[in-house]
């Protein structure tokens, strides 16, 4: 069974509300959400990630973006579980303001609370960085690690916030690391509006999918799209 939700022309947070409603469909129903803007896409993708749905396909058809996923058999949506210990991660607006507007923070709150979509994600026009290794440059691994830490910290200090940072191959060790400083820097970027993307195949290959600490998982099709559509791409 397939259900198409066309959110084109709808303003935030309607796309997320409709996506949330769609999760009440019977298990394994294929859902296709059509969105016509980046903010809606980000909100829907983050909502799905925090609802525990990681098998998501994103593609662009004409001017509309398609987000495809299936309703999980064990639904993690708040309305389906009654246990008070169950928590659902939702978005909530932070009262803190930055130079770019409101900083959006992902806050884990009790499932009884209402889900609030973040409608004011700053639209970033910065560059896209493709990080294909856990180390920066060729040479001693120890030095490469140090340089990469410094590089990611320096990205947070840029005036022009990166549009996306994509991690492939051993680069995914950086989004799954136990190094809290590094994760903090990446979360900082994410809160400023940068897409932090990890290659799903790579996480799977290194068997570290469960250790992902920041950003979301994507597949080669979306990564190729992100790279292809980009005129400002920097490969590290």
């Amino acid at each position: 069974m397939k259900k198409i939700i066309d959110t084109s022309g709808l303003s935030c947070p309607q796309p997320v509300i409709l996506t949330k409603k769609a999760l009440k469909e019977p298990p394994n129903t294929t859902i296709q959400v059509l969105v016509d803007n980046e903010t809606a896409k980000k909100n829907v993708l983050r909502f799905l990630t925090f609802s525990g749905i990681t098998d998501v396909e994103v593609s662009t058809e004409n001017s509309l973006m398609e987000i495809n996923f299936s309703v999980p058999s064990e639904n993690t949506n708040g309305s389906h579980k009654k246990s008070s210990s169950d928590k659902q991660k939702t978005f909530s607006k932070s009262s803190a303001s930055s130079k770019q507007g409101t900083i959006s923070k992902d806050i884990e709150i009790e499932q009884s609370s209402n889900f609030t979509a973040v409608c004011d994600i700053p639209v970033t026009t910065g560059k896209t960085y493709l990080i294909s290794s856990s180390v920066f440059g060729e040479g001693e691994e120890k030095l490469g690690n140090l340089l990469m830490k410094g590089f990611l910290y320096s990205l947070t200090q840029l005036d022009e916030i990166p549009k996306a940072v994509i991690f492939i191959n051993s680069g995914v060790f950086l989004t799954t690391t136990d190094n809290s400083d590094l994760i903090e820097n990446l979360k900082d970027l994410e809160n400023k509006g940068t897409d932090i993307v990890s290659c799903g195949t790579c996480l799977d290959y290194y068997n570290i999918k469960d250790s992902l600490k920041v950003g979301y998982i994507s597949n080669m099709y979306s990564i190729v799209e992100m790279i292809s559509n980009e005129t400002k791409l920097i490969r590290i």
Partner: protein
Amino acid sequence: MTEEYLFTFRTSHEVFKAEKDIKTLHNVHYKLIPTPREISSECGFSLILNKCQVNFSYKHVYSIKKKKGKIYYEKNN
């Protein structure tokens, strides 16, 4: 707010050694960052710590001051 200190080093090997030593200490939170441009134009790394007294070798130590949202580094040695 806890005062923070920034330590600069002579070589990258000294940075590695210092980081290793700090990891063995408790209650010392550290952050490894590229040396701020205000301090050095050379490519180097510095450690930010919440304690000034530590037993590793370093080049200079700076107090980190914040005035009107801007960060200043005040040289201590």
